[in-house]
């Protein structure tokens, strides 16, 4: 049954070749736009993940911190199971490191005879899924301890980035939804042309006792085939763009991100894109053929 439907569907497509090609191309373009957003999303997500992994806390201490206060901190920090390592950086070392980092300005720095830098603890955290969240919580606790001057970690950045990713996700859903609606509309029209060009045959099928399901079959397959081809072509196109981008920009990107990859959408996402193509094709053609069949309902 499926194979006869497929045969008829391909025949239909061939006899309406131009419209079919236009529709498939439209699908391919729409899916490529969506896919491009998806690729951007996937890559930003991976950058976010890399950054989150590098987040650590620097606890700056007041110059007049008391011994008891320091001891309290030294007791507290190892108690947190998420802390991988903690190193104390005394004022002098901080100043020396700073001067090393900015050796070009050594003259000016050397002319200062006070050390403006505070002592600090550098805390490294273990990897875990909710690492940033845990760091945030611990930072909260530490900042309230006496003797702590201030805290520094990438929290603000990460939060903003995370918010942006949430926005991007909503944006992607909206774009995907709108594109799908548009595609359904376009496909419904394409299938309508196919239906109308076979009107006499459909009428005859109804007259000689074909089920609605049998009549719908080829049109549904035709719609799904167009959606499928559109999605597959867009994936090929995207892969091409991806390879080109990699070839052209990988080095500059790696230098910015300290060794990153330009990722392609995952196989799951590709499968999703193809499923959307099939689904949109099915819905669009279902609307058209159903509308046509029920126009003949006498009751």
């Amino acid at each position, binding site marked *: *049954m499926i194979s*006869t439907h497929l045969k008829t569907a391909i025949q239909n497509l061939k006899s309406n070749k131009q419209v079919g090609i236009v529709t498939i191309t439209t699908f391919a373009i729409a899916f490529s736009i969506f896919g491009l957003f998806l690729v951007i999303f996937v890559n930003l997500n991976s950058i976010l993940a890399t950054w989150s992994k590098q987040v650590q806390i620097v606890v700056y201490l007041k110059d007049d911190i008391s011994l008891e206060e320091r001891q309290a901190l030294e007791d507290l920090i190892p108690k947190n199971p998420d802390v991988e390592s903690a190193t104390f950086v005394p004022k002098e070392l901080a100043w020396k490191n700073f001067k090393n980092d900015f050796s070009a300005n050594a003259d000016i720095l050397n002319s200062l005879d006070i050390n403006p830098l505070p002592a600090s603890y550098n805390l490294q955290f273990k990897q875990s899924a909710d690492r940033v969240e845990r760091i945030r919580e611990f930072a909260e606790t530490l900042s309230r301890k006496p003797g702590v001057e201030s805290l520094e970690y990438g929290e603000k950045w990460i939060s903003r980035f995370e918010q942006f990713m949430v926005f991007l996700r909503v944006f992607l859903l909206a774009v995907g939804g709108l594109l799908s609606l548009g595609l359904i509309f376009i496909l419904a029209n394409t299938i309508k042309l196919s239906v109308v060009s076979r009107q*006499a*045959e459909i*009428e*005859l*099928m*109804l*007259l*000689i*006792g*074909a*089920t*609605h399901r*049998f009549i719908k079959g080829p049109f549904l397959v035709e719609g799904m085939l167009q959606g499928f081809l559109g999605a597959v072509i867009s994936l090929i196109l995207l892969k091409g763009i991806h390879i080109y981008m990699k070839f052209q920009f990988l080095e500059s990107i790696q230098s910015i991100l300290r060794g990153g990859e330009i990722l392609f959408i995952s196989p799951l996402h590709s499968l999703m894109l193809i499923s959307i193509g099939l689904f949109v094709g099915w819905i669009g053609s279902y609307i058209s053929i159903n509308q046509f069949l*029920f126009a*003949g*309902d*006498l*009751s």
Partner: protein
Amino acid sequence: MIQLYNIFKTYNGKIPALNDISLLIKEGAFVFITGPSGAGKSTLLKLLYRWENFDSGQVLVNGMNIAKIKYTKLHLLRRNIGVVFQDYKLLPNRTVFENVAFAKEVVGASTKTIRFKTLDSLKKVGLLDKRDSYPLQLSGGEQQRVAIARAIVNSPKILLADEPTGNLDPDMAMEIVRLFQSANERGMTVVFATHNHDLVAKSKYPFIMLNRGSIVRS
């Protein structure tokens, strides 16, 4: 069995096409529906396979009250009715064989059955040698016979023929009647609509004569 009770039918709520028609056609019968052009013959047949609606009355076909059948279930009615349409309704892009086979494909028969039954049906109407021709390469009478072959290929209980001798010469027309006769002998109920009185007169079968939507003689 076909039963009509007080059927009224108008087109677009204006033109009366059938006016209080009641009739009974028993299983296995052969009945002519006759009357002048515009009398309502085609309309009557179309009611039977529910291609047209009626305004009031009741129609029973094979024990089913056809007004009660859901739109999506009409195939259950139509699979028991073979129709030879007044305008043949042959598909021009399919061969004679494919046209006849189409009626079997549509009801989901297996490839082997389709082939066997189609050839058998074409043999019955004497068109085996034309099986690879296209409808437009055939004469009117031959097209008519393809339509008949397609109508009988599913061995329906009821065979409806709408003017199947339309523009044929008298000999050819008799030939066609004989085809329906043999279908009738195989057990099909035949309803044969024609405005050709000679044809009806020459046969032994009962007739129902319509004029302007009413039965005037039977």
